[in-house]
């Protein structure tokens, strides 16, 4: 394949220390290559990017775009799609539907159209991994992967009960291989299981999980340790206990403390930073400063925000009790699922209103996290799509981070109680383009251990987004001038130019196969599927690539 040169763009490539310098980017065979030493070598194609902003393709490290939960949400809310923008079929692209949970095809086109070339579904029960892969096959253009839910898995709980850390590690290693996942995720560790057994929300990380006699603390630390021992590219992905409950910040702080000495990623942390009393909404307040202070001092932790944006959306979670809680609060339709031995699930439509004191504070709390984490490499952009809002809100969030007068304007129309219960009005920090490039691509790629994503150094995947600079940052990031994926122009001024399937990114940790007979026995005793039918085999996958990066100690700063 011939050389492709992106000439003269203003390049933001934080991982390689390029902050707004004019550079040429050379591409060959879908990868970034070094500029040819021989100056007489001419590229086969040149894209003149003079005056344009060049960044690596965006990386969304936490969203919900595949698997049964997403499908249920689509089916459950026909009204959200009926009056939404239509994605019309073209000779190149398939039709699709929007709303807060777009169809698979629309999801791929919209991510690519916004300059994002990689996205990860954050909550797939291992049992339904096959379904997620099928949906990925129908999610065009972007590269993708997923994390598997293990925080309420009975086999995991049993190993903890029996103090079998090696068997646990080997099981988790086998499970990542069997499902073709990238990482391990714990959702409300132990709490989903307690609720499934008829209990209530748990009070803290030392609660007792029925039948197993283990605590969320044990689950957190053991899975975090296993993820490190297995040398998974991404550290354990943690959705803390007590999501959304006023006063939950103490649980979050306890979780951080419990994870001391181990690497972990705390996801959608906005939803876990609430002060106040669960029985009195008027006491709801931000506790970000206290949490951020601890977080800043502990480089073993990374986070993504889970920003709330005002409007209609869908709460979709592996946290079954949370779905029930939201249904009780808002009285709207509710779906709950129990994935036999593995996980739970709750889906509830939700409308975030700027007139609501609680919702407005949630919005402010999300922004506080972006602004109070000192090291942008440790905080990633996310709305927990679609939980806090759509991924399509990222350009708006970027504008809020880069422009404090814009934040001030929104604050003006929010209930006055917001100002008294958070520190957002006092935060003057404004993100630079380089910092935006960190939290939207370089940072999440590094946190996920993706060596070839999120940067433009030699050997990286040639995923490049080119923006037309503008003082209106939202507009700038909503409509990239051009999006390049694996060295091909896929989007030109909002129009899809090339349709592709994209790659699956997954991990293949090594584990001791001596663990298999016990797992097989477990399956034969309890599972609804045969052990042999459970793993997703290579020939069921579309194009895929094993990720081995991100090992070793945290790289910060």
């Amino acid at each position, binding site marked *: 394949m011939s050389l492709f040169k992106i000439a003269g763009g203003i390049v933001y490539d934080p991982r390689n220390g390029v902050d707004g310098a004019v550079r040429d980017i050379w591409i060959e065979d879908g990868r970034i290559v070094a500029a040819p030493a021989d100056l007489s070598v001419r590229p086969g194609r040149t894209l003149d990017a003079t005056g344009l902003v060049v960044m690596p393709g965006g990386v969304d490290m936490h969203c919900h775009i595949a698997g049964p939960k997403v499908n249920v949400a689509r089916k459950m*809310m*026909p*009204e*959200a799609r*009926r009056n939404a923008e239509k994605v019309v079929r073209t000779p190149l692209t398939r039709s699709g539907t929007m709303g807060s949970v777009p169809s698979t095809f629309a999801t791929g086109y919209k991510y690519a159209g916004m300059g994002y070339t990689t996205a990860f579904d954050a909550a797939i029960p291992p049992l339904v991994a096959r379904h997620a892969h099928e949906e990925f096959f129908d999610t065009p253009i972007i590269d993708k992967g997923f994390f598997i839910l293990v925080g309420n898995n009975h086999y995991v709980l049993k190993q903890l009960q029996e103090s079998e850390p090696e068997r646990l590690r080997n099981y988790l290693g086998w499970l990542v291989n069997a499902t073709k996942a990238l990482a391990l995720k714990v959702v409300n560790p132990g709490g989903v299981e307690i609720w499934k057994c008829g209990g209530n929300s748990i009070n803290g990380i030392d609660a007792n999980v029925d039948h197993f006699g283990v605590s969320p603390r044990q689950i957190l630390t053991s899975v975090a340790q296993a993820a490190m021992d297995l040398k998974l590219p991404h550290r354990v992905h943690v959705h803390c206990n007590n999501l959304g409950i006023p006063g939950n910040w103490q649980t979050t702080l306890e979780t951080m403390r419990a994870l001391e000495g181990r690497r972990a990623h705390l996801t959608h942390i906005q939803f876990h930073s609430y002060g106040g009393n669960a029985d009195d909404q008027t006491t709801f307040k931000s506790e970000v400063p206290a949490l951020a202070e601890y977080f800043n001092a502990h480089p073993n932790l990374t986070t993504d925000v889970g920003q709330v944006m005002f409007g209609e959306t869908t709460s979709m979670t592996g946290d079954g009790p949370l779905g029930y809680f939201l249904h009780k609060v808002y009285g709207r339709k509710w779906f709950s699922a129990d994935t036999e031995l593995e996980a739970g699930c709750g889906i509830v439509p939700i409308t975030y209103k700027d007139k609501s004191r609680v919702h407005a504070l949630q919005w402010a709390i999300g922004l506080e996290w972006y602004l109070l984490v000192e090291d942008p490499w440790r905080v990633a952009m996310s709305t927990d799509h679609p939980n806090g809002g759509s991924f399509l809100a990222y350009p708006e969030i970027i504008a809020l981070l880069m422009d404090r007068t814009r934040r001030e304007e929104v604050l003006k129309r929010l209930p006055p109680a917001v100002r008294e219960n958070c520190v957002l009005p006092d935060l003057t920090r404004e993100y630079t383009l380089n910092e935006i490039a960190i939290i939207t691509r370089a940072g999440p790629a590094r946190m996920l251990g993706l060596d070839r994503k999120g940067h433009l150094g030699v050997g990286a995947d040639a995923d490049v987004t080119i923006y037309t600079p503008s003082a209106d940052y939202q507009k700038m990031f909503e409509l990239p001038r051009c999006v390049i994926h694996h060295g091909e122009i896929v989007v030109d001024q909002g129009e899809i130019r090339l349709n592709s399937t994209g790659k699956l990114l997954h991990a293949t940790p090594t584990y001791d196969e001596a663990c298999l007979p016990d797992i097989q026995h477990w399956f034969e005793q309890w599972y609804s599927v045969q052990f042999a039918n459970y793993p997703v085999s290579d020939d069921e996958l579309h194009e895929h690539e094993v990720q081995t990066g991100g090992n070793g100690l945290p790289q910060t700063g």
Partner: protein
Amino acid sequence: MALKLTYHGETTVPVEIEGLTPDWACDKSVAEIERFETFHGNRKIPLAEMFRVTGDASDKRLEFEGNLSGVHWIGAHMASGQIHIQGSAGRHVGSEMTGGEIRVHGDCRGWTGAEMHGGFIHVHGNAGHLLGAAYRGSVRGMTGGTILVDGNAGNEIGLTMRRGLIAVGGNAGDVVGFNMIAGTILVFGDSGIRHGAGMRRGTIGLLGPNRPPLLPTFKFDATDRPPIMSLLLREVRTKGLMFDESLLTADFDFYRGDLVSVGRGEIIFRHDESTATVIQRQHVPESVQA
């Protein structure tokens, strides 16, 4: 002079003319209207393939003729003007309309006036299921306007209705006013079962000679002859629906429900002497009425 649309299609595949409203057509030439994009199944065709178009729509009056029972979405989204349908019409007549008037001189199929926001529909024949209903999944259905049906209607009429009036001269099917938020539904003939299930507020008058069964989550409230009933019935008569005139001076039995929900709705029957409890409400003397 009205725009005349004579249907000559001979097909069992649905024909959809969503968007062909008086508001759209009023400033168009016949040639432009003939090119209006309609669906025949999943195929796009110009209107002229199925309709003969004559006259003009400058007075915002459309007249449909022919057997239109396979033609759907007539008058959907209309905001003003008049549509007259001589003969039967298909599904979704006047769906989501915000104003204007539709008269059907024949039968209509399902979803007539679904999620209607304003305006007036009068079906002189029968209407199908889900008259004035919310579409699947919607948080609220009809939010305004009036639907009159001289004949019978099917199941789930007024599903999740929020405001407005639906009156059926003949019989209705099951679950009238299912999940109703507010608004008024009157049925002058007989009806099926489980009416008002889940209703929060609103009024369902089931005024036919045979009282339908009531869900156990409705509670008898009172027997009464409130002035509003007479006013409401006269209003319906003025709008053009005929019913048993003795209702104008009848007593009614009021039931409150659905108690599994907010429970502030009411179902009204003609008074029946055999009703177990009769509580005569104390009327305010006319002298103290404002």
